[in-house]
């Protein structure tokens, strides 16, 4: 197919069932967009699972997301954005017939994929090390019939989570101090409003809590199993995600907030029902980032393929369709991550 035939009255890359190069290009692109739409629908299933579990158990997500490292999540976001930029530049180079720039840009894009996967692998390894991996085999929070499957691992994992939380609390307090944030009226107002709203519903709980918080030692009560899970009713999206719609546990944490005035839900804040749900966060995290990571790998394979073809001089301003379509695929991978990053790493 790639053998050019000078006698023919049409270019070698034009298939005979298309009238013009233009029509062929537009058809290919339309087909690619339909495929990308099915990709979005596939990821939509996982985003739905995420939304349902987070909507029902916001405090569990608040607790569990501290096991993820915001720095590496942000770092990988930057890596993917830059590789999307080099990919877009590569398409431009292909359109203009700049072969060397095209090869360079494809190479840089491929290296971006390598960088992303290396960071992801290090993150996954960390999850394995601290027993927060996918599935039942190495997740300290995994439970069956009301019993943790790996009770021996639980203490270390919880301690590790608390350590990460401490680190974040200090970082946030530091930033607040730098910016003078906790002195702003706006923040005080938001805090006051939130507390007032809660005060009515949870007066009793608050009183009990204040007593514990005032006492020295661990500032938070350790057992809230007597609290019923909050039920929001069919209040719709906003209610489900609003902090004031959260279970009392989230509020308890808010009342005994750190010096910076931030709400960090700790292991002790969770009741026995919620403790059993923590592993779900990790299952969702691994399914979402795993499927995304698989797409990064496939994208890298495709980029490697067009990199090889570009180096062989297969593309020209008249024919750059594969570069364009692989570019679209790579940008979609970037798009998915743009949503995954704040949803998984930046839960507030």
């Amino acid at each position, binding site marked *: 197919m790639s053998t050019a035939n000078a006698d023919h*009255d049409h270019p070698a890359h034009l298939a005979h069932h298309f009238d013009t190069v*233009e029509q062929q290009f537009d058809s290919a*692109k*339309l087909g690619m*967009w*339909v495929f*990308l*739409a*099915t990709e*979005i*629908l596939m990821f*939509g299933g996982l985003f*739905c699972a995420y*939304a*349902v579990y987070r*909507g029902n158990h916001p405090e569990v997500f608040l607790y569990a997301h501290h096991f993820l490292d915001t720095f590496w999540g*942000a770092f990988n976001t*930057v890596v993917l*954005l*830059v590789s*999307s*930029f080099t990919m*877009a*530049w590569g*398409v*431009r180079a292909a*359109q203009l017939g700049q072969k060397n720039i095209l090869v360079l840009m494809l190479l840089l894009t491929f290296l971006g994929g390598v960088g992303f996967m290396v960071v992801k692998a290090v993150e996954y390894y960390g999850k394995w090390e601290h027993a927060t991996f996918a599935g039942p085999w190495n997740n300290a929070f995994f*439970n069956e019939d009301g*019993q*943790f499957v790996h009770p021996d691992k639980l203490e270390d994992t919880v301690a590790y989570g608390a350590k990460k939380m401490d680190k974040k609390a200090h970082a946030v307090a530091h930033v*607040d101090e730098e910016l003078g*944030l906790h002195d702003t009226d706006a923040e005080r107002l*938001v805090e006051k409003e939130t507390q007032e709203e809660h005060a009515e519903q949870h007066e009793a709980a608050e009183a009990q809590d204040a007593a514990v918080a005032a006492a020295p030692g661990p500032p938070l009560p350790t*057992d809230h*199993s007597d609290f019923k899970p909050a039920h929001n*009713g*069919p209040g*719709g999206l*906003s209610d489900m*995600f609003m*902090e*004031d719609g959260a279970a009392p546990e989230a509020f308890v944490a808010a009342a005994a907030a750190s010096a910076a*005035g*931030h*709400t960090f839900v700790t292991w*002790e804040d969770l009741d026995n*029902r919620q*403790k*059993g749900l923590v592993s779900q966060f990790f299952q969702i995290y691994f399914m979402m980032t795993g499927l995304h990571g698989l797409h990064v790998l496939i994208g890298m394979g495709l980029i490697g393929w067009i990199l090889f073809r570009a180096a062989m001089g297969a593309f020209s301003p*008249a024919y750059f369709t594969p570069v364009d379509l692989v570019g*679209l695929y790579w940008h979609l991978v*970037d*798009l998915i991550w*743009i949503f995954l*990053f*704040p*949803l998984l790493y*930046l*839960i*507030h």
Partner: protein
Amino acid sequence: MSVHFEHEHHVSPIWQLAAVLAVLLILTFITVAVTWIDLGGLNIWVALAVAVVKAAFVGLYFMHLRYDAPFNAVILIASLVFVSLFIGFSLIDTAAYQDQFEQPVISSDAAGG
């Protein structure tokens, strides 16, 4: 028949691609910075709004949607509409029966609270 396209395809200038990258990086910083400030329930919506703006920039400029046949954008938007419907109805549904649902509870000894 011409070997070249009848309509010239839009070639993005490098400055435009670089400007889009700069905007995306700034928005990434903003989305991280927002978590340092407690906006109560607003935080998630700010994070999602920033993500949507970032996605729009990637779609319009990196994916050329702004210069493409509009039908490609229609396909993309249609898929997003259907995903929204799917998630929206699922959330309404789960909110409706959540309180009748018996959740497994970790036994007190096992929880080590």
